[in-house]
Structures are given as C-alpha cells and as structure tokens.
C-alpha cells in the first residue's frame, strides 16, 4: 500500500508542478518574481518540516544554513568561475556538512535547550557572514553572482527560467522529503518526536535518525540558498538572520501544518502571496507572520493542512462542520 500511495503522491505533485509552471509563465515579471521567491521559501519550508514537523526539533540555525548555501554558491560561481549547475550540488553539500556539525553539537541537548543552542549558532553564523568580509562581502553584500545558466533551446527569458528552476527545486525537494519520511529513517524520526524513551526501547537508533533528519533539511536548505543567490545575483547578511529567515521558516511550517510536507507549501504560498495581494509595506509582513503564527499555534496547531483536510471531508460527506476536538494533539 505505501508504494502505490507514493506513486499517487508523485503523480499529483508532478501534475501540480506542471499546472503551476504553466500558469506562472503567463504572469508579468514582477509576479513571476514573487512566485519564484515563494517557491524558494516553500522549498525551505518543506525541508524544515522534515526536522520540525517529523522529528520534533525546533532549529533556529536554519536561517544561517540558508546563508551558507547562498554564499557557497556565490563564492564558487563568482570567485571561482564554477557553472551554476556544479555550484548547486556543492552548495547543498557544504550546507549539509555544516548542518552535520551543528547537529552533532546541538543534539547533545533537547527541548528548549536545543532551540536556544541553535539560536546561538544561527547568530554566530549571521555574525560570521558580516565579519568574514573577504569571502562574503560583509555588510555591503555579495555582488555579481551569475544567474543560473539557461540552455539555448529553452524558449524562456531569464525570469521565466528562474521561476521554472525554483518550482522544479520545490518539486524535487518535496519528492525527496516524501521518500525520506516513508523510509525506515523517517519512521524512526516520528518515533523520536513522539516518545524518545519508547523509541529507544524499540531498538531505534535515535541518534542516527535525528542526525539524518537534520542533515537532510540542511542539504535542501543549502540548495534553496544557492538558487536564491543565483536568482537574486546579490545576497547580504540581512537575508539570513535568526529573526528574519530563521523565524519565517518556523512560521511557514507551523501555519501550513507541521508534519505534512504539503502544508508548508500552502503556508509559504499564503505568507508570500498575502503581503503582495494586500500590497502592504514590508513592515507589515513580518507583523502578519507573527500574528498568523500566534493564531495558528493557539487555535489550529495542525495548521492550514488540517483545516483544508477538514474542509474537504466536509465537502465530501456533506455533513456539518465538526470542529477538531479541543484536546487534539499536534505533531
């Protein structure tokens, strides 16, 4: 049964990707850019969900890991002349390696201590982007990152190509995450999240499982960072702060629905589209993130995903809406 289920998910995801790409390419350049950024943040959110939603650890270091991927790509392409297609996997590996080091340190703690420790690491990362100006360009930012190379036969301009790449990365991340959570490691991660002691009693190597989850999320966060850098042609430390990118990831995943993988995509879509749709100043968007996050964590801790599921079920049965039981547990 799981195999046919995976097949169904894959077909649905590919179909949605094709629809999204077709629709997106009809948009004007500005909206196309919004879609591109939204897809990158959705990629971040999906990979973050593997750690937060499936394994139960709140990392605040992922904003910095996003930066590691971005700077790695920038340094390799702009300084060393690598093509984007070689820099992308390399950036993922660099972020994955950084993630492995962070994980080995951070998993010596848990709960709040894990959050505070990763918070400290995230801050160190952000400070390092500022201090290591020789590599990163410091506070002024890193300029002149080449755009992702576009083959001649592609009948798209650079903006369209960027959007297509971002959506394709989202698709690849989503499918990889689906494979991961269905694997034995994924099952072990769920066990870690739900009951560490019982997981150990069942002989699950909990250290291995949560390390795998952290590194998985770090690698794909690195890919997203690399694409972000190449698309923007410019990156600066303020894109990788703990309370900026790091916090946004938490908001996207929680608002979307932890532990669902598709919920965070909804969350990213909503939280990217909302400020654009309302045409509000960027000052309000972080505010909106905060308010939505608070409202969801209190009233709908399973996020948009559970609301959507409940809504669909209601449509299907035609029965009246039944609120989730008050004591409902969150993943």
């Amino acid at each position: 049964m799981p195999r046919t289920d995976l097949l169904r998910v894959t077909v649905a995801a590919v179909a949605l990707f094709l629809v999204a790409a077709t629709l997106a390419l009809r948009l004007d350049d500005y909206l196309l850019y919004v879609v591109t950024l939204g897809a990158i943040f959705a990629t971040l959110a999906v990979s973050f969900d593997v750690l937060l939603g499936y394994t139960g650890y709140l990392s605040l270091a992922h904003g910095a890991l996003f930066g590691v991927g971005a700077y790695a790509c920038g340094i390799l392409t702009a300084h060393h002349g690598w093509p984007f297609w070689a820099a992308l996997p390399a950036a993922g590996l660099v972020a994955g390696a950084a993630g492995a080091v962070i994980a080995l340190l951070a998993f010596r703690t848990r709960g709040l201590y894990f959050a505070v420790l990763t918070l400290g690491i995230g801050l160190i990362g952000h400070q390092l982007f500022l201090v290591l100006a020789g590599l990163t360009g410091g506070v002024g930012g890193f300029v002149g990152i080449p755009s992702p190379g576009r083959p001649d036969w592609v009948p798209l301009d650079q903006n369209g190509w960027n959007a297509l790449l971002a959506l394709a990365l989202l698709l690849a991340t989503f499918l990889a995450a689906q494979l991961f959570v269905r694997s034995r490691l994924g099952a072990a991660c769920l066990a870690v999240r739900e009951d560490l002691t019982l997981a150990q009693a069942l002989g699950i190597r909990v250290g291995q499982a949560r390390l795998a989850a952290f590194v998985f999320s770090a690698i794909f966060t690195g890919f997203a960072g690399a694409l972000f850098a190449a698309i923007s042609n410019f990156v600066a430390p303020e894109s990788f702060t703990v309370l900026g990118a790091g916090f946004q990831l938490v908001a996207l995943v929680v608002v979307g629905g932890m532990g669902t993988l598709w919920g965070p995509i909804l969350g990213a879509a909503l939280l990217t589209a909302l400020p654009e749709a309302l045409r509000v100043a960027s000052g309000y968007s972080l505010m909106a993130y905060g308010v939505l996050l608070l409202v969801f964590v209190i009233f709908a801790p399973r996020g948009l995903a559970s609301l959507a599921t409940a809504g669909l079920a209601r449509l299907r049965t035609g029965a009246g809406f039944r609120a989730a039981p008050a004591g409902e547990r969150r993943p």
Partner: protein
Amino acid sequence: MIDLFVQQLVNGLALGSTYALVALGLTLIFGVLLIPNFAHGEFYMLGAFLTYAMVLAGMNFWLAMALAVGAVILLGCLVDRLAFKPVEQAPPLSMMISALAASIILQQSAMLIWGGEARTIPAPVTGVLRTPFFIVTWMQLIVMASLLLAAAGVWLVLNRLRLGLAIRAVAQNRDAALLMGISMFQVRLATFAIGAALGAIAGALLGATFPIYPTMGVNPVLKAFVVLVLGGIGSLPGAVFGGLFLGVVEVMVAGYISSELSDIGAFAILVAVLLLRPQGFFGQAQVER
C-alpha cells in the same frame, strides 16, 4: 593614571548589569512558569520606548520611567494571557513558537509606531566620576546600583512575602503547590509583573545611554538566554553573576581582540556552556523541557 584593564572591567560590569537585569526577569519567568519568554526582549525595548515617548512629551525622566514600567507590567500580563495561557496544556514546542510569535508582534508594533530609525533618550544625569584608576559615568553607576536594588528587591519578595513563598512553591513543584491551594492565577500574574518590570527598568536605563530602536531587544534577550544557561535556569544569583561575567567578557573581547568578534564571543560562550555544562554554574537540577 587610568589603567586600561580596570577601565574595561568597569565598562564590562556596567554593560553586564543590564544583561543581568534582563536575565533576572527571564530566569524568573522560566524558572517559575517554564515559559521560554522570547518576548522578554520586547519588554525591555518597550520600557525604553515608552520612557522615550513620555520624556519627549516633556515629562521628567524618572516619572516617565516609572509610568513606563507600570505600562510594561500590564503588557506583560496581557502577553501571558494572550500568548502563553492558551498553550499551557500543549506540548512545549507550542510554547516556544508562541513566545517567538509574541516577540515578533511586539517588535513590529513598535516598528509601526516609532519607525525603524534609532533614537536617544536625553540622559537624566550627565557627567562622570573620576577616580585615580578609572572613569565611570553617573549613568553607569545608576545602572549598576539598579541591578543591586532589583536583585535585593526580588530576593525580598521571594523570601519575605507570602506571595514569594507561593511563587517558590510553584517553581519547586507546580502540582503540589496547586494541591496546597496556592492560586496559580496570582503566581502567574506576580511572576510576569516582576519579570516585565525588571525588563522595562533595564530598557529605560540603557536607553538613556545608548540609541534605542525596535529590534534592540533581540540581542539582549538572546544574551540573557546565554546568561541563563551560564548561571543555571531559575537561579537568581546565577543571573546576576552570569550577566556581569558576560558583560565583562564582551567588553574585553571588544577591547583586546576585535569589536567585531564580541557578539560571536558571547554566542560562542552560549554554545560552549550548553555543551559542557548544561546545568549552568549556579543551578542544580533543572527541568527537562
């Protein structure tokens, strides 16, 4: 003659005093209620901005500060009601997320009201005290004295008042305390009030020396977490000495190595302490969260 080392030490102690004031409130709220109050930095920031607003309107600094502290106390209790009470029964992860959200909301509110640019509160007291070995501004002395007064005040409340006894009982064992008929409502209110007040005092005082801006609470609250970890969660002496220690280290790193590295130094201490001595240097057993 002025000895550079002693001068740095004094500057470090002054800076550390504000960290300690922030950490006192944070450690109290976490030690008693098990709430990782990321929004504590915003209590500090709002203490500064409310004082600023009233001083700008022509009010005396000290009166403005007192009113600001009162307002932040109300706000602290409101934050507890709206952000923390509703997720009391939820897993600890929800509490952390809720705290993050509260922090961002308060910060962005200040951004909307006052804008992002840095401002300064005119210092109520100017001038310096010159000694043979170091120079200290009167404002620095006031900050250090406030830490001593605040720490003594908190100690008195906890150890000499009935309410303090209740607070300590809840910190020891919440269920047992509830069975003994202690009012959780009062304890929560008092803990948040004291914690918020300490944060606001620190913010107002610091604002009289340094520029203030809506995100000014971020670094101090993170450093207060460092202090918490250094001193042991829930330990008041740990918060005081941890804060002073962190301040001195930062000033020394900035003075002798590089000012760019001082924040990295502080956070590296956080990481190292969490790894080597997660129970802190003053705390005993701690709550598994």
